[in-house]
């Protein structure tokens, strides 16, 4: 059995080894995809080993080497990181299965480069998950940005170039321009960047106190991957990527690395007690609340399904930021659970969007009326995913909303509860309307017969579903979002060290 402390470096190295294997198997697509899947399965096992060890109270760690005096590249798994590691590696496997169906179904080019970049990206995501200090976190954060750039510009046309420019521009500008100075400033004041229980700022409250709000702002906007408005434009622009990229990276790995970093900074760098005492996080709580509502409002106007989902993601990510900025235990818990629940729900929605595109080449919501009758499984999964995002029981997404409301009540911010309620109503309007229209409305005139069904490989009577490899993964994650609802208590207990529980 592999020891948890060894599983951490291994889970960083394994995808890199997988990347080389994919490169060597360039000419044999089946073996190449097998390499991806085997790497994914092994990585998931490693993440489970770490997850199990953290669950039994251990904090396995690993120090690579010291780069600058007092600044090592080091890793330490704690509950939040272990959970993120399991989500990222597990869903990477699911997404790899989906990618095979999607990339082949749509005859995409440069598939080897695609899978290679994916492997590097997942390695970087694992690095973010297990980072023991801000310095290490920043390194892997940047690697994640750069390794996903070839995926965003995959199509290589003018539109992809423009999207890629904004993607890289916003993410690099915020991370180098705001996050890096924030980290160095923290280091200059406290002499460390180590993630510490209770935060590192409290011991230096005299020096940090006057600038706590500024510093927190640098982190909140510097972590551009959290897509807090107004640094969100990279996310809608990343939608030029093939759908498996949007489904996994821009609903799970990249964006969750962002909000995960926000939570880590709030809990382990500032410490929620320090945030509450100084009140530094109040303005950012309102910015997050504004981001939730504004992004939902924009999403309502988007006819392109992926664009609508992207803005929905912007909105949902701000739930996590909001949880961190509430600076209460329940808020942090809600934010942490949102990472897990939203990952499953939003990935389902994106994979459904990809399945619809593969089978019927439709991208606009208005074209999807009546499509539910020929793709009942896809739209069924979409329906479940949408329910989870909205926060309706019995789906996993209901718990984070519940805890966030508790957190808002604890913090005495009743207006935030109203924000959460309005947001859920908006979600109902722009997400649930899609499967409802698909099932109950007739196709628009002149479009009576769903055309371009060439990609549909499952044709059974009136059914014209996407290939099985693009259909099974969303069904799987939708089921996951349903099951997670019943495991809220174990998850709460698992994450409780985050809020000072045992």
């Amino acid at each position, binding site marked *: 059995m592999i020891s948890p402390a060894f599983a951490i470096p291994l889970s960083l190295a394994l995808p890199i080894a997988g990347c080389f294997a994919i490169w060597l198997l360039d000419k044999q697509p089946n073996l190449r995809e097998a390499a991806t899947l085997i790497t994914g399965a092994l990585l998931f096992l490693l993440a489970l080993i770490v997850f199990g060890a953290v669950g039994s109270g251990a904090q396995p760690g690993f120090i690579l080497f010291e780069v600058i005096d007092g600044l090592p590249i080091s890793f330490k798994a704690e509950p939040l990181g272990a959970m993120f590691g399991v989500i990222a590696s597990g869903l990477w496997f699911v997404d790899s299965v989906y990618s095979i169906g999607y990339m082949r179904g749509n005859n995409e080019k440069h598939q080897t480069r695609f899978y290679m970049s994916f492997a590097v990206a997942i390695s970087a995501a694992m690095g973010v998950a297990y980072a023991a200090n801000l310095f290490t976190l920043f*390194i892997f954060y940047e690697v994640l940005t750069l390794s996903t750039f070839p995926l965003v510009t995959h199509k290589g046309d003018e539109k992809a170039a423009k999207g890629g420019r904004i993607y890289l521009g916003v993410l690099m500008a915020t991370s*180098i321009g705001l996050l890096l100075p924030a980290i*160095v400033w923290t280091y200059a004041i406290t002499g460390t960047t180590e993630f510490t229980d209770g935060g590192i700022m409290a011991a230096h409250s005299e020096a940090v106190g006057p600038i706590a709000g500024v510093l927190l702002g640098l982190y909140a906007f510097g972590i551009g991957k959290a897509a807090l408005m107004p640094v969100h434009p990279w996310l809608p622009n990343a939608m030029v990527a093939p759908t498996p990229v949007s489904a996994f990276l821009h609903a799970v790995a990249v964006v969750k690395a962002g909000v995960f970093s926000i939570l880590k900074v709030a809990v382990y760098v500032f410490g929620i007690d320090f945030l509450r005492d100084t009140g530094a996080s109040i303005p950012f709580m309102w910015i997050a609340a504004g981001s939730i509502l504004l992004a939902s409002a924009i999403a309502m106007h988007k006819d392109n399904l992926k664009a609508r989902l992207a803005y929905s993601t912007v909105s949902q990510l701000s739930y996590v930021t909001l949880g961190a900025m509430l600076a209460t235990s329940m808020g942090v818990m809600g934010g942490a659970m949102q990472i897990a629940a939203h990952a499953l729900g939003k990935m389902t929605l994106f994979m459904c969007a990809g399945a619809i595109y593969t089978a019927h080449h439709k991208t606009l919501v208005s074209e999807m009326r009546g499509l539910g009758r020929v793709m009942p499984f896809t739209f069924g999964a979409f329906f479940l995913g949408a329910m989870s995002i909205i926060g309706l029981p019995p789906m996993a997404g209901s718990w984070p909303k519940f805890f966030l409301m508790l957190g808002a009540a604890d913090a005495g911010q009743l207006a935030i509860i109203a924000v959460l309620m309005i947001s859920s109503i908006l979600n109902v309007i722009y997400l649930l309307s899609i499967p409802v229209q698909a099932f109950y409305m007739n196709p628009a005139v002149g479009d009576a017969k769903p055309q371009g069904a060439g990609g549909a490989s499952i044709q059974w009577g009136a059914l014209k579903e996407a290939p099985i490899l693009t259909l099974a993964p969303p069904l799987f994650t939708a089921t996951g979002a349903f099951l997670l609802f019943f495991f809220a208590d174990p998850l709460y207990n698992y994450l409780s060290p985050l809020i000072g529980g045992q």
Partner: protein
Amino acid sequence: MSIVAQLPVLPIVMPIMAAPITLLLPRGRAPHLWACLFTWLTFAACIALFREVAATGPISYALGDWAPPIGIEYRIDLANALVLLLVSGIASVVFPFAYRSVQLEVDQRQTPLFYGALLICMTGLLGVTITGDAFNVFVFLEISSLSTYALIAMGARRDRRALTAAFNYLVMGTIGATFFVIGIGLLYQSTGTLNMADLAQQLIGQDNRMVQAGFAFILVGMGLKLAMFPMHLWLPNAYTYAPSAVTAFLAATATKVAVYVIIRFFFSVFNFDFAFIGAAFTYVLLPLGLAGMFVASFVAVFQEDVKRMLAYSSVAQIGYMLLGLSFATVEGLTASLVHIFNHALMKAALFMAVACVVLRSGSHSIHAFAGLSKRMPVTTWAFIISGLSLIGVPLTVGFISKWYLLNAAFAAGHWYAGFLIVASSLIALAYIGRVAEVMLLKEPADDGKFVLPKEEAPLSMLVPMWILVAANIYFGVRTDLTGDIATRAAEALMMMAGGAP
């Protein structure tokens, strides 16, 4: 008399003896191999010297056994041992790289002359660094400058504008050197000595007009040589029209050595007891460093010529070095020394990548870079990785530089400077990103204006280039050599200057 005792003089004697012999060799490979051999020997001597200094402390060597302060003294401590290592190291990589590039860009009849001049240029730069005698600095400075003028002019085979660029640099460089020697003269007038250590002793308590004027002349003179904004006007043309290998060598070493001279004079000859030193930090180096960082970076964004773009970027990067030392703290000085080293690595690699493109497509216009990732992938990735280093992405030396600089800025309380540093890096993101996008995503124009490269650059160029790219990554994760040594060197310099350690 063992050879080890003579070690300090070897990095100067070996190449300066070898250079005239280069001229006598037949055209073709011979001068190149001869020059390469001596850069390697010099590099080996510098490594030995560095190890010696790191282990046992500063070394003093009396040239010709004439005891200082009358005789010329070579004085090597950690600060200049690091710069010596850098100059000779870059030379030992750029010289082998140069052959194919020079074959194309320099008149065949001039090759013996070319390699001879390049060796002399290196010797001059090493001499400026190694010497502990103020007048000797001037002598070596002129040795390196004169050979540089000739080297730049040799770019005339491809573009006649190299001649005006060289002439322009000759005028500016001579003015700089004259100012410098006037400054030395004024100091000599008031102290009667030229030895730096002795000068430091004699200058104590002499805060008079003559010393102040001497200092001002030295600052302006060196400012011209190191292309301190706004005295940088010679640099973009000189770098653009010089043969590519010369640009790679000069960009990595010449301005760095001039920055080193500034550091040496500020901290070892003068000290913090002089009120004008503090004023020069606050009112000259800090604002000019910041202005250079922004103006030059901004100009770089709009260049159609990649070589010129990188040249402006060099002016901006010099701004970082000046900014670091203007904090007048150990952290700031460390950051400057680290960036001197790191910037040499990234800029040399970038200019070498451009040289590869010039070899295959005959142009350094940005349009010649279109679609290069498909035709010359190895060169493209070398450029991109070094470019990321220039921006300051983690796992590269650029990040280490940024970290030290930011830390110095915040620790010194200049937090606004911290934000200006990163803002300027973002402009670097814009100009490097622009080239990277053209290389990766743009299709080459089919108008026949630019030759489409048919093959990758030859191995003799790729290997040295990738050695530097690898160094960019290696020193981006291990800072034992750069960070630790620079910190020790900075502490020693601060002690000499009598500042707070």
